[in-house]
C-alpha cells in the first residue's frame, strides 16, 4: 500500500460518522468509569486504600484509571474528536459551499426528475404564469430570482440558505470549547490563600491531582480590609463578604467587596470567596496591669498595631506577637500559626519617651514579673482577626469556552429550527404540445414541514391561475412515511 493510499485511508476513517460515533462511545464509557472508580483528585487517600486492596490500587494507578480525566490518553481521545471534527468539516465543505454559493438555479429536465416534490399546472400565458408564481413564492417568504438558460426562462426561489452552515457552526463551537479547556489545562492554575484582616499576602497554594501542594506567587498582593458573615434570623448563613484591595508594586491598584457568586477579576485572575474563619492573629489583646508598688490593678486593651494609655499616662504597645513559640539558643522562634502558646513583646513608654521592652512567654509564666518595670502585665484575653479563605484561579481559555457555548446555541437553533427550502419553476410542455407550469422543490431536512408548505404553495398557485389540469407527481409519499 502506497503512502498516498494510507493517507486516503486515514482521511476517510477520520471523516466518517462511524469513527465519530465510536469515539463518542469510547469517551462516554471511560467517563462513566471515571465516576465509578474513585478518582485521586476528588478522594481522600485513606478512602481509596479502604475501598481497594493494595494490588488493585496499584493496577488502577498503573493504567491511569484513578485519574482518568487528567490521563494523557483521555486528553488524546478528546484531541482525536477535535481532529475528526476538523476533517469532517473539511470533507463536507465543498458540497455545502456549492449549495450555498453556486446553487443549481435552472431546473433542467433531468434535474426535475430528481426532486421529491413537484407539480405541473396547465397554463396558457407563460409569462403571466411565471409572474403569478413569482408573486406567490414571494408571499410565502421565499427570495425569488428570475433565471434563464438557453432562452428558456424560469424561477429559482429559496429561503434560509444559511441553514446549510449549521453543522459547521456546531462543530466549530465544540472546537472552541475543547481549545479553551486545553489552554486552561496547560497555562491555567487554581489555588487558595487565607488572608487575615489587615494582612497583605501574595502567595497561593496550588493543589495537584496527586494531592501534593506547590506554592505560587501572584503578580500582586491581596490585602484584606475586612471580612464577615451575615446571617438570617434563624442563624443560617446569608452572606459571606470580604473587602479586598490589590497591591501591585507597592501601590493599591484595585479594590472590591466580594461575595460568594461575585468574584473579583483583575488582569485575568479571578478571586473567589471560598471560606471564612478566625485567624491566629489577634485584633486586640487585653492585659491586666498590676502596679509593682502600690496602686489599683487595671485592665488595658491594646490593638495589635496601636497603643493604649494606662491610668498614669504611660502608654503600652505590642511590639511583637508570636502565636506559638519555642526557644533555641536564646532566640525566640515561631513554631506554628495556632495561638496555642503565644509570646508577646510589650513596649511600655513613659512620659519622657523612654520605652521599656518586656516579654510574656505564656507557657513559662503568664506575667512580666521580675522584669524591672512599674507594672506587672499578664495576658487576660484577646479578640481575633477574621481571615477570609480565597480561591484564586487563572483560566485564560474560558473565553474560548464561552464563545463556543454561544456559537453552539446559535448553531443548534439554526440546525433544528431553520431549513433550506428551494423551489424551482420552469415552463414545460405536455405530450400534445400544451404549455405547463412546472414547480418542484426540495429541502435539506424536516421534509414533512416542507411538504406542507409545498401543498400550500400549490393550492395558492391553483387558485390564482385557475388551473384546469393539474398533474402532481409525489414520489415522496413513500419516502415520507419512512422519514
Amino acid at each position, binding site marked *: 500500500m502506497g503512502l498516498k493510499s494510507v493517507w486516503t485511508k486515514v482521511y476517510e476513517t477520520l471523516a466518517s460518522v462511524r469513527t465519530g460515533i465510536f469515539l463518542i462511545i469510547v469517551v462516554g464509557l471511560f467517563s462513566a468509569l471515571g465516576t465509578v472508580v474513585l478518582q485521586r483528585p476528588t478522594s481522600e487517600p485513606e478512602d481509596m486504600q479502604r475501598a481497594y486492596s493494595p494490588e488493585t490500587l496499584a493496577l488502577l494507578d498503573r493504567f491511569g484509571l484513578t485519574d482518568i480525566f487528567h490521563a494523557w490518553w483521555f486528553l488524546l481521545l478528546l484531541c482525536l474528536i477535535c481532529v475528526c471534527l476538523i476533517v469532517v468539516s473539511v470533507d463536507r465543505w465543498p458540497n455545502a459551499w456549492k449549495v450555498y454559493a453556486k446553487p443549481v438555479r435552472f431546473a433542467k429536465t433531468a434535474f426535475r426528475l430528481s426532486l421529491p416534490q413537484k407539480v405541473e399546472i396547465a397554463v396558457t400565458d407563460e409569462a403571466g404564469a411565471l409572474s403569478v408564481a413569482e408573486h406567490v413564492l414571494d408571499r410565502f417568504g421565499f427570495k425569488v430570482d428570475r433565471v434563464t438558460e438557453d432562452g428558456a426562462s424560469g424561477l429559482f426561489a429559496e429561503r434560509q440558505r444559511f441553514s446549510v452552515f449549521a453543522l459547521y457552526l456546531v462543530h466549530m463551537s465544540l472546537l472552541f470549547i475543547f481549545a479553551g479547556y486545553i489552554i486552561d489545562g496547560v497555562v491555567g492554575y487554581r489555588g487558595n490563600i487565607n488572608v487575615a484582616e489587615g494582612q497583605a499576602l501574595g502567595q497561593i497554594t496550588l493543589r495537584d491531582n496527586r494531592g501534593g501542594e506547590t506554592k505560587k506567587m501572584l503578580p500582586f498582593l491581596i490585602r484584606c480590609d475586612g471580612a464577615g458573615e451575615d446571617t438570617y434570623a434563624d442563624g*443560617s448563613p446569608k452572606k459571606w463578604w470580604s473587602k479586598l484591595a490589590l497591591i501591585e508594586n507597592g501601590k493599591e491598584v484595585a479594590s472590591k467587596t466580594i461575595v460568594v457568586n461575585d468574584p473579583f477579576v483583575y488582569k485575568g485572575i479571578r478571586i473567589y470567596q*471560598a471560606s471564612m474563619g478566625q485567624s491566629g492573629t489577634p485584633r486586640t489583646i487585653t492585659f491586666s496591669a498590676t502596679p509593682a508598688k502600690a496602686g489599683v490593678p487595671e485592665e488595658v486593651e491594646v490593638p495589635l498595631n496601636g497603643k493604649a494609655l494606662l491610668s498614669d499616662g504611660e502608654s503600652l504597645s505590642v511590639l511583637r506577637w508570636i502565636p506559638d513559640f519555642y526557644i533555641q539558643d536564646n532566640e525566640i522562634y515561631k513554631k506554628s500559626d495556632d495561638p496555642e502558646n503565644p509570646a508577646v513583646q510589650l513596649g511600655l513608654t513613659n512620659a519622657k519617651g523612654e520605652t521599656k521592652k518586656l516579654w510574656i512567654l505564656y507557657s513559662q509564666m503568664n506575667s512580666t514579673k521580675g522584669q524591672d518595670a512599674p507594672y506587672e502585665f499578664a495576658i487576660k484575653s484577646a479578640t481575633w482577626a477574621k481571615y477570609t479563605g480565597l480561591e484564586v484561579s487563572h483560566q485564560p481559555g*474560558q473565553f474560548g469556552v464561552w464563545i463556543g457555548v454561544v456559537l453552539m446555541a446559535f448553531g443548534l437553533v439554526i440546525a433544528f429550527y431553520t431549513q433550506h427550502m428551494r423551489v424551482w419553476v420552469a415552463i414545460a410542455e405536455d405530450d400534445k404540445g400544451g404549455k405547463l407550469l412546472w414547480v418542484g422543490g426540495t429541502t435539506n431536512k424536516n421534509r414533512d414541514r416542507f411538504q406542507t408548505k409545498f401543498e400550500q404553495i400549490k393550492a395558492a398557485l391553483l387558485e390564482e391561475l385557475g388551473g384546469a389540469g393539474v398533474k402532481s407527481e409525489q414520489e415522496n409519499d413513500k419516502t415520507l412515511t419512512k422519514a
Partner: protein
Amino acid sequence: MSDARVERQQPANGAVLLVLVGLGIAFALLVALLAVAKTHSGPIYSEANMLYTALVLYTGAATLYMGYGVTGIERYVSGASLLTALGFLANTAAVAHRWSVAGRPPFSNMYEMLLSFVWTLALLTLIAERAYKVKIIGSITMPITVVSVILMQLLPSDVRPLVPALQSTWLQVHVTLAMLSYAACAVSFALAMMFLIQDNMKTESFQALTSAGMVAIYAAILVTRFRSGALGVTAYDLEAKSEVMVSRGHPLFIQIPELGWLYLLVLLSALVPLALFVAGKVKKDIAFFDLASKAMFVSILLQAVGLAIFVARVKNGQYGAPNADGLFTTALPANPFLLSGMVGGIVAGLLYLLLLWRREGLQRMMPPADVLDRVTYKIICIAFPLLTLMIAAGAYWANQAWGSYWSWDPKETWAAITWLVYAGYLHMRITRGWRGRRAAWFAILGFMVVIFTFFGVTYLLPGLHAYAAG
C-alpha cells in the same frame, strides 16, 4: 365511531386481576396518605390548603383518565380534563403564593421543584389534550402528579432562606433548563415506548423490559442498602427537620431490621417473570409467557406490600446504627431514592398491566407509528438544545461560585454522557437515517441515562463506595 361502540361493549380482560391490583395499590396509597395527612391550620387560602385542593382534584382526574385508558369510554375524558383544569388553577395559586412569599422562583429545594414540576406536567397534559388531541397522555401524567403531590406532603415545606452559594441567577437558569430538558427527555421516552407499542413489538417483550426495570431498581436498592437482612435508611431528625450527619457529606445510615429480606424477596419476585420470558424464548413455548404475566402480577402486588410496610416502619419506630450509639428516627423525605424507586417500579408495572389487558384499545387511541417516530425526533430536537444550555448555565454558575467551569465531578460527567448519547442519536438519525425501532431504543437509552444522572449519581455512586469504605 362504530369502533368506539364495539370498544364500549367489549368486556375488560382480566377484570378480576385488575380489581385485585387496584385494591392493593389503593391500599398502599391510602396508608401513605393517612400516614402523612397533616392538620392544615391557618387561613383557608393557605398554600397547604391550595395544594390539598389540587391533590384532590388531580386524584379525581387521574382516576377518570385511567378509567378512560382501561375502558376506552370517551366521556370520562371531558370530566377528567375539567378536574385537571380546576386542579391546575389551585396549583397555580400555590405556586404564586410561594413565589411571592419567597421573593424568588420556586426551584430551590425538592419541595419547590416538585411544586413547579407538577404545575408544568398538568399544563403540558392540558396542552397535549386540547391542541394535539392526545387524550391518553393524562392516564400517564396525572398519576405522576398525584404521586408527586403526595411526596410533597412529606417534604419540609417552609420557605428556607438560601445559603450564599445558591444565591445566583445562573443557578435558577440552570435548574429551570434542567427541568425543561429532562421533561422533554421524559416525553420523548414515553413517545418512543408508544412507538414500540404501535410498531407491534410483542407484549411479552414489554413484560421482559418492565421486569428488567424492576430488577434494576431493587438490585440498586439492595446493593447500596442491604446489610445482613436489614435495610439501611438515612436517619432524620424530626425536630430539626434535617438529616443526621456523621461527618460532612456523610449521612448516618440506620437499619430497619428484616426489611432487607423482604426486599430480597421482592427482587426475586421481579426476577421470576424475566426468567420465564427467557425460558419461553429458548424453548419457543408461549405457555411460559402466560406464566410470566401471572408472576409479574404477583411481583407488583408484593412491591405494593413492600412499599406499605416501608412507609409504616419508617413512620413509626426508632432504629439503631452499626456505627453510632442510641436509636434514631427516620422519615420519608430523607429517603427520596428508595421511595421514588419503589413508586416507579409499581407505576411501571401498572402501565404494563394496562398494556397487557387493553393493548388493542390503547393502539386505537394512540397516533400511528410513523407520527410517533417523527414526534419523538422533534421532541429530542427540543430537548438537546435545552440540555446543552443547561450544562452551559451550570458551568457558568460553577465558574462564578468557585472558579472552575468544569471539574469532572460525577454529576457533571453524567450530564456530559447524557449529552453524548443524544448527540449520538441525532447523528445516527440525521446522517445514517436511523428510523423506527432502532431510533426508539436509542431514545429510551437516552432517558435511562437521564434517570441515572438524576438519581443514580446522587444515591447510587456514593453508596457503592460508602459500603466499600465500611
